[in-house]
């Protein structure tokens, strides 16, 4: 019991929780934007992979870390555009299109990586984002460790929570995005373009998702591995429902998830001798299912989600 308490009050534990939460924050923000506009984006898993690969590759080729981040976002936006074209003007099944984008983005990333680096046995490494060292702030007790010794990408994720929240709730654009996910006819009747709004939001949301992938190869690790995304995208889709499509709750959900994951890693070192490691590895997936099941009954899905809209239709 005391050990558990020790873990929960340790700043290193909460720093780890925030680190694990970072890619999920990007992913959930991206997913909730798309869904608020009425488009389910199951391309997320592949967009994570593409962001991870493209960002890392750009940095490895000498574009610099921020150059890599930009390339990752562009890669995400491109696959987002593909999904947007398939689902918005063409009105194709969002489920199948999303799976298609995931398969496509994943296989293209793997193929490109293999083609660029055909003969490597161990993955080449880059110098990843380093923990920040901000005078005074980073030396604060507890908070300094938890918040201000993270990498710049974690800071960016936290900033994006505020940005997405501001755009969604304070700007006419956010008003229009929320409206178009509920009733596209209302948006069209007020002279706005349903197609432009939905496509733009899906592209922007996909760029955010890709940053989650970039965090994996450029901050959490310093190399690209096959299969490294490992279902994080799907977890984000579950967490988006859990977060009721709100940026603040998305942060909370991702943090809870990160804390749980960090906790099980520490627990593993305590009881790992008695319980197979796979049990702990399963927990994130089971936890996501549990999170989804808990809120599913009262989940307030955007009313127009999954429904294609054609001009003049009502």
């Amino acid at each position: 019991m005391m050990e558990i308490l020790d873990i929960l009050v340790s700043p290193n534990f909460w720093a780890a929780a925030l680190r694990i939460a970072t890619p999920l924050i990007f992913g959930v923000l991206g997913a909730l934007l798309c869904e608020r506009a009425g488009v389910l984006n199951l391309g997320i898993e592949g967009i994570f992979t593409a962001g991870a690969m493209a960002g890392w590759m750009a940095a490895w080729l000498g574009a610099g870390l921020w150059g890599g981040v930009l390339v990752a976002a562009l890669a995400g936006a491109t696959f987002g555009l593909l999904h947007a074209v398939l689902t918005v003007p063409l009105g194709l099944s969002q489920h199948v299109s999303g799976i298609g984008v995931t398969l496509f983005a994943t296989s293209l990333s793997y193929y490109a990586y293999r083609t660029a680096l055909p003969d490597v046995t161990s993955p080449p490494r880059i110098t990843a984002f380093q923990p920040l060292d901000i005078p005074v702030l980073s030396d604060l007790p507890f908070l300094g460790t938890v918040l201000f010794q993270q990498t710049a990408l974690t800071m960016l994720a936290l900033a994006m929570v505020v940005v997405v929240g501001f755009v969604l709730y304070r700007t006419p654009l956010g008003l229009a995005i929320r409206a178009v996910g509920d009733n596209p006819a209302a948006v069209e009747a007020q002279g706005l373009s349903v197609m432009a709004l939905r496509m733009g939001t899906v592209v922007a949301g996909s760029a955010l998702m890709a940053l989650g992938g970039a965090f994996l190869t450029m901050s959490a690790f310093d190399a690209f591995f096959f299969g490294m995304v490992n279902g994080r995208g799907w977890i984000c889709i579950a967490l988006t429902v859990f977060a009721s499509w709100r940026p603040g709750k998305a942060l909370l959900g991702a943090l809870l998830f990160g804390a749980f994951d960090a906790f099980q890693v520490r627990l593993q070192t305590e009881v790992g001798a008695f319980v197979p490691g796979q049990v702990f590895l399963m927990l994130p997936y089971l936890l996501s299912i549990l999170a989804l099941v808990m809120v599913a009954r009262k989940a307030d899905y955007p009313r127009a989600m999954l429904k294609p809209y054609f001009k003049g239709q009502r």
Partner: protein
Amino acid sequence: MSEPLPGRPHERKIVLSLAGITKRFGAMTANEAVDLDLHAGEIVALLGENGAGKTTLMNILFGHYVADEGEVRIVGPDGELVPLEPGSPHAALNAGIGMVHQHFALAENLTAFENIVLGTRPLLAPSTSSRADRQRLEALMRDSGLTVDLDLRVSRLSVGEQQRVEILKALYRDARVLVLDEPTAVLTPQESEGLFATLRQLADSGLAIVFISHKLAEVLSASDRVAVLRMGRKVADLPTAECDRQKLAELMVGHSLSQSRREPRAPGEVLLALEGVCAGSGREAVRDLSLALRSGEILGIAGVSGNGQAMFARLVSGLERATSGRILLAGRDVTAGDARAMIAAGLARIPEDRHRDGIVGAMSVAENLVIEEIRSARYQRLGFLDFGAIAARAREAIAAHDIRCRGGSAISRLLSGGNIQKIVLARTLDAEPAVVLAAQPSRGLDIGATGEVHRRLLAARARGAGVILISEDLDELFALSDRIAVIHRGHLTPARDAGELDRATVGLMMAGHAEEAA
């Protein structure tokens, strides 16, 4: 061209002109060479039956559709008529056209205020509205008398309030032309009167107003001028003062109307009884429903849409479970029954939304004709379908009811509304059920198809079935019903003989004033 009416100063000024509008959908012509001029300060009724092309015409005006031929011109800043960019709601809004759709174009997750200011500011502005915007809107509400609680989510507003939000949206954008599509479909007769009083006040302040309707009474009482559409063509355009009911009806239909005749019949034993039934929660809830439907009668249920009719229909259809009370069918307790049990017990259900609940659009006409009985020995053996029997049934039904299609294997989705309803009627009524539940059975149908629906309901009554007719159309209810009950906020009044009721009384009951009406 209309004769200008004397006395009103605005009326000679044309603010909007539609010229030679033609619109085709595939082989169907929805509008053919329609001309229409609108003057400032007048209220024009656009009259026509379902499918006459009224809504299409207004959707072209508002830029939802692009006309194949013809032009819309609107008065510009210097008073000259200038062409309006086709296919752009944005351009229509900027030119001062406001439209109130029949199905409200409101985002229910936003507040009334947010819906009104939506799209009025640059998208990337740092705030959604200013204090000045708010004050201007509040002034508009005071001047027009259209008051709503601006900070409530639209999902919490009543239908009447939502309609006010729609009108405010147009006024907030300084509309000079206001188009309303079937504005009274969701209102009580009293609310409708209130709406038309408001519209008159707006017209007096210089607005040009068009409302779409198929109800003769309101057209006669509320408009200055009537344009009649029939099968896509404008067949008349004349001052309301020169019209009467009979004349408008003939213009609208093209021939004089024959009423379905209801023969007097003594009601028999009770077939369906509801005893204190409660179900659902929130706005959709029904409370303490009691009624007794007898053999050989049509029991009409009147009410403004959204007052629990849907839940009532779902309950009796076996799609919703009662939380308390009992439902008895021919004396047998079917409270816990599901849809299959209700069908088996001899209850036919004609759903309100025939496209959503009535047919599986992607399946064939034949499959839709047998879907309710697919498990009966008539159509299957040991779980394998008997295609011969299914095809034979389809041939029989198509011939007997004149279902216009390319045969039993035609895909149902592509049939007209009237033919889809014929499939539903054949499927539900051919088995001669003891009880029929018909929810809005003629909604959206033209006069011919409506007549067919009425004929079949009366035939069911004549052979001794009990029929529950849920309708928002008082004309239909009075034409068919032996007794009428009114549903309001989930409560059902006791049924009274239709002969002792009139429209005004039922209207009061629909607004919840059952005591005053009694």
